[in-house]
């Protein structure tokens, strides 16, 4: 990747701002809705570029501990899924659940951080 600025993340940010500041005020109905969705999608990309690597590393660490084996993130998740289905993880439920909850929280921190906020 080039080190020149704007970086990829900064370009995504520029597009998101363009949509929010210049497209949103000029569209309505279905197009306004899809513009809002597109803005959300770009925000997910921005957060992933900033925080994704650290989250992946931590998830992989937890998976190594749980499974007692090594591999890539996809491979390890496939192994955990298979082990849960077959009942092999039944005696490690608490540890599995702790791991899964942390992983899900990370996913939401990227996909929709507002989801964790309580209203009312």
């Amino acid at each position, binding site marked *: 990747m080039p080190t020149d600025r704007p970086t990829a993340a900064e370009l995504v940010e520029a597009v998101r701002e363009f949509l929010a500041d210049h497209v949103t005020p000029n569209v309505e109905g279905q197009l306004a809705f899809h513009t809002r969705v597109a803005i959300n*999608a770009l925000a997910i990309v921005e957060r992933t570029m900033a925080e994704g690597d650290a989250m992946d590393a931590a998830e992989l660490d937890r998976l190594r501990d749980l499974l007692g084996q090594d591999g890539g993130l996809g491979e390890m998740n496939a192994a955990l*899924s298979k082990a849960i289905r077959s009942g092999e993880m039944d005696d490690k439920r608490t540890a599995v659940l702790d791991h899964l909850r942390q992983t899900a929280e990370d996913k939401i921190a990227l996909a929709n951080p507002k989801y964790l906020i309580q209203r009312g």
Partner: protein
Amino acid sequence: MVEAVQDPELSAGEQLAAVLRDRLAQEYGAGTEIEGLVRLSGGASRETWSFDALKTDGTRQPLILKRDPMDRQVEKKFEGVPEGRLNVGRLVEGRLLQLAGEVGVPMPKVPFFLEKDARTTEGFFTHRLPGEALGRRIVRDDAYAQARPRLAYQIGHAAGRFHTIPLDDLPRMRGLPAAEELLHYRAIMDSFHQPHAGFEYGFRWLQERLELAGERYALCHGDFRNGNILVDEDGLVGVLDWESAHLGNPSSDLGWMCVRSWRYGYHDNVVGGFGDVADMLDGYEAGGGGWIDPEEIYFWQVFGTLRWGILCMILGFTHLDGEQRTVEYAVIGRRAAETEYDLLQLLD
């Protein structure tokens, strides 16, 4: 079979307006005009239109038309998954609204139907009632402050009414036992070849507790949630969107109402973001549905949360597989993470 075709010379609204004038002439007399025809935003699986019928005696009838989409949708196919779709057609859906209304469920009147022909897909009309269907506003707007404390009881009561419609009175519908439905959704997840440890944990949890699913069959709404109810200042005025209706365990509807995704941030109000389970179950008993163990509702709340997660995945992959490219589905695919989070909070 006749397939409706959109005339390229006309806009969708113009073609529909001509169809509506003919149909309304049959019901309200020749010369009935239509006014304010507008397509409401809604699901891709159907079209919803709003308009007023202006009768020749000067009176006005606000109406909603719900019909199958004119641009035919690609049915998403799942590799190695047996048919499990529970959706009903528009004519059955309209009939179910009528049946529910007849047993005392608050419901807009369904005055007549729209048969399919060369110009239109099939559909049904309802009287358009004033009220709010957007869940976010129902849980938040001051206008519904008096309605909110009543809603859990009222929707429980409504479910108690339509769950006890005799099965013999119903149009032909599909049914699926809980165990099979569970395997159905797991097979769909497998067809995406994207291992999902969180959902896997949910499937295992449910399978170990299948005896909680209950062994009863009733008319289930199938998508009974905040977002598919119509509410005014005094409370419930309609239960809408019956396209997922099927025969199933009645508790599945009540558990679905408790899924966190339609609490719109008001997480403490387990029922739709406005009420609690005890009120809903009180209403259910008063409506004739009988007593239900809250543990059974909890089972179906977990089931519903997992199901919503799989449905999010389906939409994400509908985009990824190229069947319907849209940024909306792409982002909904990521919302599976929200239901995964909710699911894991519910499990032990």
